[in-house]
């Protein structure tokens, strides 16, 4: 019970600092904080499928890019819709895409799934590059909105919601237990009466939709996107490294890995002004983590807890509608 209060106290303090941050630092650091929040959230979205369900998605940038492109296409000239209207649209498009892509690919195991998702993301890059309406390789420019605080709070809200949903749904609900069961032994989970196809698809869609929301905010924030900047493999690479570094299938691992790596990224950019070296560091980080720290940073502090279902977990489960289909 004591540890629980400490957790809550720590979280409260963290949230307090995060909310007050815009008052404490200048715009430069606020931008960095915004980016760190985005990566922490993106890493968490990748971890939903990669960490909890054990399906390595090498094309997660596809959904980030979809969110970004839907927002951009709706905000530029012929439509000119407000930003708030584009987010539900982005969610709907991404969810539809994720169902269409996920239903067949999630039948594939391990390596085949990784290749299929990777190919899907590359198809989208090539598609966005050769098509006219996406602005081709030149990309799209959005109407600028230069309010750093707005984007900071948007990212903060999105990230906080992502972690809340992950905590409730994957750590403290029956749905989470089902997901972990199918990760650990899919045939056994199936034999226990879990509709694994449905649970996998729900996880995949949730993970995709989360990434698309960050993509939408990102597009509006940077005001300019092109196929490489939002669909690029580097985005997936970073999510994978962040989660591996932080700890696969843990709640706080992606946050730790995401913030740590993003800070490294900024430092390298500040001192070398070149991102090629960062790619090498990413690669070296993956190799070293796999070899020496397979459970990530979070694995160093792991307590052996037992899965339990909380009231909030049940509520979120109901809200998201996850796991309904196979409850008798």
């Amino acid at each position, binding site marked *: 019970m004591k540890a629980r209060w400490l957790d809550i106290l720590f979280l409260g303090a963290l949230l307090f600092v995060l909310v007050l941050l815009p008052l404490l630092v200048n715009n430069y650091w606020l931008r960095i904080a915004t980016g760190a929040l985005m990566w922490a959230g993106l890493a968490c979205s990748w971890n939903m499928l990669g960490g909890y369900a054990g399906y390595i998605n090498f094309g997660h940038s596809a959904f980030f890019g979809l969110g970004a492109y839907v927002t951009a296409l709706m905000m530029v000239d012929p439509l000119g819709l407000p930003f708030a209207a584009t987010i539900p649209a982005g969610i709907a498009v991404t969810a539809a895409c994720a169902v269409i892509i996920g239903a067949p690919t999630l039948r594939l195991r*391990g390596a085949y799934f990784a290749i299929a998702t990777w190919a899907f993301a590359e198809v989208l890059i090539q598609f966005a590059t*050769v098509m006219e309406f996406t602005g081709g390789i030149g990309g799209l420019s959005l109407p600028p909105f230069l309010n750093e605080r707005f984007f900071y709070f948007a990212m903060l809200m999105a990230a906080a919601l992502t972690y809340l949903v992950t905590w409730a749904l994957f750590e403290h609900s029956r749905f989470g237990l089902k997901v972990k069961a199918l990760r650990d032994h899919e045939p056994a989970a199936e034999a226990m009466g879990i509709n694994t196809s449905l649970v996998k698809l729900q996880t995949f869609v949730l993970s995709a939709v989360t990434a698309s929301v960050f993509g939408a905010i990102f597009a509006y924030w940077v005001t300019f996107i092109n196929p490489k900047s939002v669909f690029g493999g580097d985005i997936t690479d970073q999510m*994978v490294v962040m989660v591996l570094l932080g700890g696969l299938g843990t709640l706080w691992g992606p946050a730790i890995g995401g913030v740590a790596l993003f800070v490294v990224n900024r430092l390298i950019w500040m001192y070398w002004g070149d991102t090629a070296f960062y790619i090498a560091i990413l690669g070296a980080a993956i190799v070293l983590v796999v070899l020496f720290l397979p459970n990530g940073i979070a694995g160093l502090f792991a307590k052996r807890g037992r899965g339990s279902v909380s009231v909030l977990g049940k509520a979120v489960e109901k809200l998201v509608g996850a796991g309904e289909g196979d409850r008798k």
Partner: protein
Amino acid sequence: MDLFLQTLLNGLLIGGVIATFTIAFQLTFGVLHVIDFAVGGWVVLGGYLGYYIVAGLGLDGFVAIPVAFVLFGAIGYLIGPILYNVRNSRTARPELMALALTFGLFTLLRGGMLTAWGFNTRTVATALSGESLMVGPVTVPLIRVAAALFAVMIAGGLFVFLYRTRYGLAIRATAENRHNAALMGVNIRRLSANVYGLYAGITAMAGVLMGAIYSVNPESGLRYTLFAFFVAVLAGLGSVGGAVVAALLLGVVEAYVATYVGSSYSLLAIFATLFLVLLISPRGILRRGL
């Protein structure tokens, strides 16, 4: 009609070069049960080795082929056991960890090459560069013919090794059933290291040829990884014989799309086909995959 024949021939010649490293890629999967994302990295490194042998030592590009085999064979021989250990470790998901390891290796190679050599494109110069041969109405660049001949030699050598020697038998036995092979006295760990070395060497040789035909830059590794995956998926992972057919098919399809639709569509076409094949027939068109 001339263009049609020309494209067919070009595609087949390129397909032959693709076949060399995809055969080795399939073999590696069969033995190690690891999908190697780094395959494109080895191709590009081979190309750069060729470039530096030409530019630095003033030798012909073809000299680089055996050098690439020895050098990258040795590097692969050192990496092989690491990969084997990760794949057979007691962590929760060794399969995903091994996948992540090769992915990391690929990223490391790409980032390292970008840092060292930048985005510039390099070509391996050979005695045959720029020469071409007229066969009736069809013009064939000699370098492609030579590359395809080399590819046939390498692939032929590999098949002789696999099907006519005792060690080749051990490799095939391991690919078929590693447990039984181990019971027959095959040292799986050492064999895995050797196979990875063989694969890295062959892939780097193919890289020298690719560098002579097209050119290489650090970003082009992605393209060759895609080729290897495409062939693997079409043939079924681990199927060596199917890889030859699938690689030739890939070469021809790419050539036709590039000639008749536009080269910017060729990657789109390949990725889309790869994706569809995975959905329709996950074990490969030939249904011989693992």
